[in-house]
Each structure stands twice: as structure tokens, then as C-alpha cells.
């Protein structure tokens, strides 16, 4: 290894590194707190400004900020991040710290060794935005950083930083060409580099909760969620999509009630798959929500599978709990795709009476509701009739469906049922289940999503957080049956979605409003692109890679054959890249060919070139011999001399070769030259 000592950096090198840093930082900016983002970019800008100032003042010693000040500064930033995030050892504050740290390093780089370190830091910073988003836009945003890395490394490799380097444009072109030449290697690695099925080290707990359903429900939690436009998941159906009233996407089932809040039991394995004839098959692409819930249409009739492979041992991504919740193997931190089958139905067999006790438990709270339930129950001893009476009561009383329910204090069900009567789906579901349990009927709240919008551009359905919903299940005649009190109060919620069913003054999120003209069209078109991107690039994970290898038959090859195939592919790549060099070299050879052809021609015309004679002298002699072609000979001599000896750029080269060829074309045949020779 060349143990060359670090050399001081020239301004062009510092600039190239700065451009790399900023190109790496910019895509991350949107994921950082504003003050961190602004600060990191400010540091980079400060160095650029100092550099300019040094150049303007032609300083011998550049302006420097002492290292101890920078170290102190880094500690201060770490403390500020600790305060801002509430913790420091975690992914998000560390990413933010790295972002600022790279800026601080840029402020103090002096030697090529610092430059190498900064390049490494910047390359890692360029990776960090993908912790937060792997959208198509993010992928495009990383491209400048890749080319900038090539430019910065090339600048660092320049031995004499004082000499005038290549123009900025030439450097970027060359780097882009290098990246393009490396593209086959990158694509090959992307396809064949083995992915991990399970993480190497534990993923640190994400402190920042993402929006999505949780295993708890308090009054107001779902209406808050409904204010979000974020996509919960996307679905493509193998056949026609289900009707709107069948679009109940089952999520967390909440059986425990403490008088105010509902919560889920820990998932108990052993749920039995539904059977029936209205089977529907579809593929769900779930956005990461850091929970283990997988969503399926009521009622799931298969386990979620990686591929649309119906064989029994196709890998499964989750299991079915006893209350028909699908539970993933691990919290969903990356977009997850699974193939799912459901039987469209609203009832399924209930478990034994012993287990149902949990679903009938009532804490001593909400006395008015309990009293009301008992008086109503005395009139309707039959379970089915009682439930019908409760639903009728909801319909007949002046209940309002609204996104902005009033705040409820203690005994929230009492307050909702008898005082405010304004609520969102969680209020209705909760109150309905309380009324049933108070009458001794086992019942529970089911949360999930209801609805979904078909994207005509991609032929798939988008389910957003604004579709979040809560409904109820009760045991009637030994079967769990779905009841949706919200549908009774606001039937349009089920038919037309949120926007059509709440008062116009409610703050319904933009994309839940249905037809909003061109914005909606653009949004749906973008979503279709993003969906394809998701399916084909982002979700190319361990399982799908193995599936691809199976398609190729790679798993049937012995390892040595696979190794040979890889070697052959790399060799083919090298040959292809060298072939592109050869094309460029032929341009150089053309010059030599033209020149030797000219020399042969003039020799036959009586003017041979002795081997020591240079092109300009020879052309000069020819011009004396044939003065009528003096201009052509002059052009030939100087063009050839420039091509052969002068430093010429690629553009100049092709122009000079063209000049040389044209000037030689002008000359007549050797015989006529011989005839017109001027002695």
C-alpha cells in the first residue's frame, strides 16, 4: 500500500467534498427536526463562505476554527438532541447527530485524510433517509450523492491540488460515466446478494409512534386517527373488489374494558380459519406501523402467505389468533406484502362459554347505561330482539355522527348516551357493547378499517388511516355476529365513506373527501407509481429473493456452478467495459491511420518524410512544393501536431480529427500532385 503522508487539501477538493456532503444531507432534511436540518446545512454553508473569503483575500493561512471549539460544539449538539428527543441512544437522535457531525467535520477538514473520513461519513449519511422513507422520490434523491461521491473521490486523488483540474462539468460527466459502468455490478448485486430473513442485531425500539390502530381504544382515539391521510395499506384483488358494505378490514379485537378504555387481550394462538363459498383472494401491501396486526377482510380463511402459492408449506408471515386476528411474526417495521384469502361473512362460531366470560365482564362504571340496559332487557328477554331494540334506539334517538365529539369526563358511555349524543364510531361501538354486556350478552369491540378507495390507474384499493373504524361483535345463538351501530346512525358512512357522513364543517382530510378534482387525479396517479415501486423494488426481501432464485433454478445448481456463473458474469462485465474503451481508442487510431496514409501519398508524389521530421516541418515542406495547397498542408500539420503532442479535450479531439480528414480529402491524387510539383 502506498503509505503516502496526508497532503493539504486545495480549495477545489474542499468544494467537491462539500458538494458531496450537501448532496448526501439534503434528502435527509425532511426527516429531521427543523433546527437540526437548518443547523447542519448552515455549517456546510459556513465553510463555503470561509473558503470564498480566504480566496478573495488571498490568505496564505486559511481561516480556522480551533478543534477544541468544534469538539465542545459536538458535545453541545449531543446534549441538545438528548433534550429534543428525550433520549440519545436510539436511531433517530443518532441519525440527527451524524448529520450535524458531518457538518462539523466539514468545517475543519485540512488534509486528504480528513477528506477521506468526510467522504465516508457523507456516504453513510446518504443511507440514513431510507430509515424513514423508501419512496421513489427518495431513490431519485440519492442519485446526485452517488455521482458527487465519484467527483469528490476523483478530486481527492489529484496529486497537485494547486494545478487547474478538469472543468466541473467534465468531472461530473466522468463520474456519471463511471457510475453507469458500475451499474451492471450494482444491479447484479441487488438481485443476488443474499438478504437476511431475520435481523443480525435487535432493532432498537422506535420511540416515535407511527399513526395506526393500536391495541387500546379510548374515546377520541379513532377520530384522531381519521384525521390522517396516510395510507394504511393497499390491496389488489384477484377478482372484482368486494362491495362497500363487505369492506370490513379486521384488526385488533378489544375485549377488556375498564369503564373508559378498551384494550386487547394478548393474542392467543389457535384461531380456526373460516369456511364458506364467498371466497375472495387478494394481496395486501401493509405500510409499516410497528405493530403486529395484519389486516384481512372479515373473515380470514387462510394464513397470510408470502406468495400466491397455494401449497401448504408456502412460507407464512403470520398466524391466526383465537379471536380471528392475524398476527405477524414480528412488528411490521418495513412495508410488508402478503397474499390473503377471506370468506365474506359477518358471523363465525363462538368458543366455549368459559372463554366468553371475558367478553361479558362489566366493570362497575357507567351506572346510567347499566340501568337503562337492564330496564330494556326486562322488555326483551330474547337476545336477538334485545339487540334489535338497542339498534332501533340508536336510530330513533337524536345521535350525531361527527369527527369532533365533545370531550367526555368520567363515565364516558353514560355521558355519550344520555347527554352529548355526538360521537364517532368508537363512541357508538363502545356504548353498544356496554349496553349488551350490561344485559349479559357477550360482546366485544372490533377495530380495523372500513372502506377503501379503488385507484382506477392501478386497479387496486387504497385504505387510509381516515378509513379507521370500530364496530362490535356479539354472541347470538352460539355465533359471533357483527353489528355496526355507526351504520345505523349514519348509513352513508358505510356506503360512501367518511366524507359523506360527517357534517361539512368537520376537518375531513383531503383525500378522504372523495372527488376533489385534479388534485385527486394527480394523487391517485402518483400513488399508482409508488405502489408498483413498492411491490417491485422495496419489497424485494429475503423471501422474494429466494422465490426469484427458485424461478431461475439457482437452488438446483451446486455452489461451484453458481460461483462460476458469477465469475463469468463479472468477466463479461469487464470485457464490455473494456470494449467501450476500445471504441474510444479507435478514434485515436484513426489519427495515426490518416497521417500514415498522407505520408505514403506524398512519398509517391515525390516527397517522402524522413523518420526524424516532425509534422509541422514536413507539412511546411509540402506547402513549399505545392503552394496551391499550402492552406490544406498548414491545417494538416498543425491538426496532426495538436492531436499527437498537444493536450486536447475529447471535444477538441473529434473536431481536430475531422479537420485532418477534410484537409487530406482536398488533396488530389499522387500522380497529379507529382505533375503540379513546384520545385
Amino acid at each position, binding site marked *: *500500500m*502506498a*503509505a503516502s503522508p496526508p497532503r493539504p487539501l486545495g480549495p477545489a477538493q474542499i468544494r467537491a467534498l462539500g458538494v458531496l456532503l450537501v448532496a448526501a444531507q439534503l434528502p435527509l432534511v425532511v426527516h429531521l427536526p427543523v433546527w437540526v436540518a437548518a443547523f447542519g446545512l448552515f455549517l456546510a454553508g459556513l465553510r463555503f463562505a470561509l473558503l470564498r473569503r480566504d480566496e478573495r483575500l488571498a490568505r496564505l493561512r486559511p481561516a480556522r476554527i480551533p478543534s477544541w471549539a468544534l469538539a465542545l460544539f459536538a458535545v453541545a449538539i449531543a446534549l441538545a438532541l438528548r433534550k429534543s428527543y428525550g433520549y440519545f441512544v436510539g436511531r433517530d437522535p443518532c441519525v440527527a447527530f451524524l448529520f450535524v457531525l458531518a457538518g462539523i467535520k466539514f468545517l475543519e477538514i485540512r488534509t*486528504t485524510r480528513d477528506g*477521506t473520513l468526510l467522504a*465516508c461519513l457523507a*456516504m*453513510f449519511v446518504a*443511507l440514513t433517509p*431510507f*430509515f424513514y422513507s*423508501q419512496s421513489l422520490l*427518495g*431513490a431519485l434523491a*440519492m442519485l446526485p*450523492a*452517488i455521482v458527487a*461521491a*465519484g467527483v469528490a*473521490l*476523483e478530486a*481527492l*486523488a489529484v*496529486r497537485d491540488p494547486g494545478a487547474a483540474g478538469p472543468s466541473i462539468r467534465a468531472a461530473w460527466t466522468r*463520474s456519471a460515466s*463511471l*457510475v453507469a*459502468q*458500475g451499474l*451492471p*455490478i*450494482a*444491479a447484479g*448485486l*441487488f438481485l443476488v*446478494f443474499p*438478504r*437476511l430473513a431475520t*435481523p*443480525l*442485531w435487535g432493532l432498537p425500539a422506535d420511540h416515535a409512534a407511527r399513526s395506526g390502530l393500536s391495541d387500546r381504544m379510548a374515546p377520541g382515539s379513532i377520530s384522531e386517527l381519521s384525521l390522517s391521510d396516510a395510507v394504511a395499506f393497499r390491496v389488489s384483488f384477484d377478482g372484482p373488489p368486494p362491495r362497500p358494505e363487505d369492506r370490513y378490514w379486521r384488526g385488533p379485537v378489544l375485549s377488556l374494558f375498564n369503564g373508559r378504555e378498551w384494550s386487547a387481550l394478548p393474542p392467543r394462538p389457535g384461531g380456526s380459519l373460516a369456511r364458506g363459498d364467498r371466497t375472495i383472494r387478494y394481496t395486501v401491501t401493509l405500510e409499516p406501523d410497528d405493530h403486529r396486526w395484519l389486516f384481512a377482510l372479515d373473515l380470514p380463511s387462510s394464513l397470510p402467505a408470502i406468495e400466491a402459492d397455494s401449497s401448504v408449506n408456502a412460507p407464512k408471515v403470520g398466524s391466526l389468533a383465537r379471536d380471528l386476528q392475524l398476527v405477524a411474526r414480528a412488528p411490521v*417495521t*418495513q412495508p410488508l406484502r402478503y397474499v390473503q384469502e377471506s370468506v365474506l361473512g359477518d358471523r363465525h362460531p363462538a368458543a366455549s362459554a368459559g372463554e366468553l366470560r371475558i367478553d361479558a365482564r362489566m366493570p362497575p362504571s357507567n351506572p346510567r347505561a347499566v340501568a337503562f340496559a337492564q330496564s330494556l332487557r326486562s322488555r326483551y328477554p330474547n337476545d336477538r330482539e334485545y339487540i334489535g331494540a338497542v339498534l332501533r334506539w340508536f336510530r330513533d334517538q337524536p345521535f350525531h355522527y361527527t369527527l369532533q365529539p365533545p370531550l367526555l369526563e368520567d363515565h364516558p358511555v353514560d355521558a355519550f348516551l344520555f347527554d352529548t349524543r355526538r360521537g364517532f364510531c368508537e363512541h357508538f361501538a363502545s356504548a353498544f357493547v356496554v349496553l349488551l354486556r350490561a344485559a349479559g350478552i357477550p360482546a366485544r369491540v372490533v377495530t380495523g378499517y372500513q372502506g377503501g378507495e379503488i385507484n382506477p390507474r392501478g386497479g387496486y384499493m387504497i385504505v387510509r388511516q381516515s378509513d379507521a373504524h370500530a364496530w362490535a361483535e356479539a354472541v347470538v345463538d352460539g355465533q359471533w355476529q357483527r353489528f355496526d351501530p355507526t351504520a345505523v346512525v349514519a348509513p352513508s358512512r358505510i356506503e360512501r365513506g367518511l366524507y359523506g357522513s360527517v357534517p361539512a364543517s368537520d376537518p375531513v382530510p383531503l383525500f378522504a373527501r372523495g372527488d376533489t378534482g385534479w388534485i385527486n387525479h394527480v394523487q391517485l396517479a402518483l400513488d399508482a407509481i409508488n405502489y408498483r415501486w413498492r411491490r417491485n*423494488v*422495496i419489497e*424485494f*426481501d429475503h423471501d422474494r429473493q429466494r422465490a426469484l432464485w427458485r424461478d431461475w433454478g439457482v437452488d438446483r445448481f451446486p455452489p461451484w456452478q453458481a460461483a462460476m456463473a458469477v465469475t463469468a458474469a463479472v468477466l463479461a462485465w*469487464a470485457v464490455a*467495459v*473494456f470494449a467501450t*474503451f476500445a471504441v474510444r*481508442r479507435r478514434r*485515436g*487510431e484513426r*489519427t*495515426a491511420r490518416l497521417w500514415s496514409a498522407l505520408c505514403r501519398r506524398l512519398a509517391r508524389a515525390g516527397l517522402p518524410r524522413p523518420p526524424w521530421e516532425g509534422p509541422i516541418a514536413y507539412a511546411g515542406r509540402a506547402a513549399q512544393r505545392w503552394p496551391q495547397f499550402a492552406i490544406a498542408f498548414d491545417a494538416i500539420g498543425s491538426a496532426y501536431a495538436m492531436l*499527437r*503532442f498537444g*493536450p*486536447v479535450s475529447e471535444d477538441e479531439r473529434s473536431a481536430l480529427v475531422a479537420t485532418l480528414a477534410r484537409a487530406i480529402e482536398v488533396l488530389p491524387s499522387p500522380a497529379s500532385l507529382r505533375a503540379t510539383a513546384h520545385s
Partner: protein
Amino acid sequence: MPWTARLRQRAFRSQPADRAPVILRHSRIYILPSRRGLAIIATLVLMLLTSLNYALSLGLALTFFLGGLAAAALLHTFRNLAGLEIKPLAAGDAFAGEPLAFSVALAAGALARRAIELRAAGATASVSLASHATQAIELRVPTTTRGRIALGRITLSSDQPLGLWRGFAYVHFPLAGVVFPAPELNAPPPPAGAEGLGELAAGANTESDLAGLQDYRPGDPLQRVAWKAVARGAGWFSKAFEGSGGRGAVELAYRSLPAALTAEERLARLSAWVLACERAARPFALALPGVHLPAALSREHLHEALTALALFDAGES
């Protein structure tokens, strides 16, 4: 040669067996990551592990893009050296302590070459070549002792275009230069001419015995040309010295030096005297054990005498 030695020669070119000119081909070119290359590779490995662990498809894409860039740079590093032609031009001579110049010629061939570094025997040179260009490169090797100094193995290397990979090739030409003994400082004047053979001409200062100018005749030593007169345009004259013609040749003998001097000190003194005689344009003969150069006065004679001093094997005396 046993096959191990052949293999070693092929890998490391430790023997000066290369015949000019050498064109660098894949069998001679080695490529290893540079220090910066190792740092970047370590970063890429870190990025790879992070992306794998968090299942970041785009992180992997970024890592592989940068890996592809590094792989393409490797090919370019190879291409920057491959096809380069190198041939030995000349080995110079020098007095010990002065740099000894070797020159080699590099021919670019069809491709332009960027920042090729040559390194041999403690000398380095760096050169960039346009396509089809040929350039002579001087390697100035520092010297300390007299003798025949070989240039040794030349390492041609380049880390272009990105500085991530260092490509290098060894070329070993049988190129050697002669290092003369450094002349003794403040040496006593050389012995007197033929009349006083063996005696030291005390205080003989030839410069003060200038007798006048005479017409320059072809063959007169250049040291005697009256350059001031030439510069004035007065014509060509030679300086005539009092008795300088009559003094005859000086015999410089190794054995007649004081016995107190070591072999190297004797050689240093002889070196000084040879130069003094040349300056004074006095013909001299040189007698070393085993070597005798008859009296003469010419460039060739001077070179021959200094070479004899340089290569003299002191063990023989």
C-alpha cells in the same frame, strides 16, 4: 532456475532480467486497495450490514451503486497502466553524494495516461501522458558511496481515477550508473610534471603563470580557451601558460600516496587530483594496482580515469 525462483522472478522481478522495451500487460500489473480504498470499503461494508439488518432495499441499492462505482474505478486503474511501454534510456554518472540520474522513456500507447508514478532506489517521478506521447523521465537517485550503482527495480504505479485502488507493476532493467569517489576537499596540489616525477610541486599555481594568448588551434584543450576574448568577439584564442607545455605528463600513482591514508582517502585524493589536472589542462597518467592508464588529456581519458577510481577494488591493494 528452479521453478520457485522462476515464480519469484515473475512475481517480484528481483533480477534485472527485463530487456527493453517492456509493455505492461495483465501478467505484470497488480492491483490492491489503497488506504483510502480500504476506508471506503469498510464504510460500504458498514452500509451493507445496516441495510441488511433493517431490510432497507434502497440502502442496499445505494451501497451497490457505490460498489459498482468502485468496481468500475478498478478497471480504469488497470487500464491506466495496461499497454504502457517503458524502456531504459541511459544511466549517468555522478560523484558520491550527488544524485545519479537515470533516464527511462515512457510511451503512452493509444491511451492517455494519468499520474503514473515511478519509484526506484529512493527516487520518485510522476508523469501524465497524452495518448501516443512519449516522454523521457529522469530518476535522480541519491548516492553515498562510489562504485557501480544499479537503478534496481522500478515500480510503476497509479491510483487514478478515484484513488481507491493502487495498480502497480515491477520492471527491472539491467541499468547501472557509475558513482565516482567524491574528490577530497582542500586536497594538496597534484605532483609536478615529468621532470619532477614523484615529487610534489609545492605551491605550483598554474593560474598565476599566464604567459599570454596564442591563436586557438583545433585540439587545444577547452579549459585553455580564452572565453572572455571569445565573448568580446575578439576571436578564438588559447591561453598559454609559463612552462605548461614543458612540464609534461603527471603520473598519479595510488602507491606513492602517504601510507597513512586509507584506501578511500587515497581514491578521494586521486579523484581531486584528476580533476585538478583536467582543470589545469595537464596530461596525466593514472596508476592503480592492476590498472594503468597512460598519460593523456581528454574528456574520454578523464571519464576513464574516474571510472577506474570508482570501480577500483580496494581489497586488492
